[in-house]
């Protein structure tokens, strides 16, 4: 049963990733990316990370992709992908490069020495993550808030009409 769902979800993830990089229309790419993020959220659920699955749907599929769709609608891209490509040969070299990278990563994943298996702590996943964030990772957690504030101020500065 778990195998069946894993195979289906991975096929959806791989297909939507390929659709993202192959379709010319940026809005189609955004929809493919939403599908991909949703399938990765399902994989998080299968790995026992319920909190991350919910955060993935809310933060990525919700907030970040809405931002992308807004940017696509403001900029109306598409013309730059249709004209003749002066660097076509160089771009096509990306395919063998990506294949080599895939083989290297897959060999590392399959042949790497695997550590001793353990079990995730029993009980609520949200409670475990919450305790971890507010004890061991308290300082990075607070730094994240500073980072988000700095990003917000920076975006306001960049997006002002006459900066």
């Amino acid at each position, binding site marked *: 049963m778990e195998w069946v769902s894993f195979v289906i979800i991975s096929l959806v993830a791989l297909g939507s990733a390929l659709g993202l990089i192959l379709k010319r229309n940026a809005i189609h*790419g955004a929809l493919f990316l939403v599908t991909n993020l949703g399938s990765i959220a399902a994989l998080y659920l299968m790995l026992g990370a319920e909190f991350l699955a919910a955060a993935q749907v809310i933060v990525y599929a919700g907030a970040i992709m809405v931002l992308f769709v807004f940017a696509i609608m403001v900029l109306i891209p598409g013309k730059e992908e249709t004209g003749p490509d002066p660097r076509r040969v160089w771009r096509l070299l990306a395919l063998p490069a990506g294949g080599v990278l895939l083989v290297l990563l897959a060999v590392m*994943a399959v042949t790497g020495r695997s550590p001793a298996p353990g079990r995730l702590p029993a009980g609520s996943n949200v409670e475990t993550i919450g305790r971890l964030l507010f004890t061991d990772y308290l300082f990075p957690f607070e730094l994240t808030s500073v980072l988000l504030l700095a990003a917000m101020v920076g975006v306001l500065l960049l997006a002002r009409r006459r900066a």
Partner: protein
Amino acid sequence: MSVPETYYLALAAALFSIGVVGVIIRRNPLVIFMSIELMLNAANLSFVAFGHRLGSPDGQALVFFVMAVAAAEVAVGLAIIVAIFRLRRRLSVDDLNLMRW
């Protein structure tokens, strides 16, 4: 029977490679950004898979931080793209050679 974590890692490797190819072959900066998100998600997936294997929730905490940084990165990046579009009226990455050596 449960799926070994190796398969999750192989899937993450495939997604990461697709993201790398997308960054190189596309000319639209917005699609390049989306491919970068794809690569970030592949890395997140391997974090969660390793955490599951080791029985440690630290991997999930790291993914939480990656998500926060990715949100900040997307906001700043899209603002920069919009600012460049206002300045140049074009959106192809081939035209953005102002800071080349």
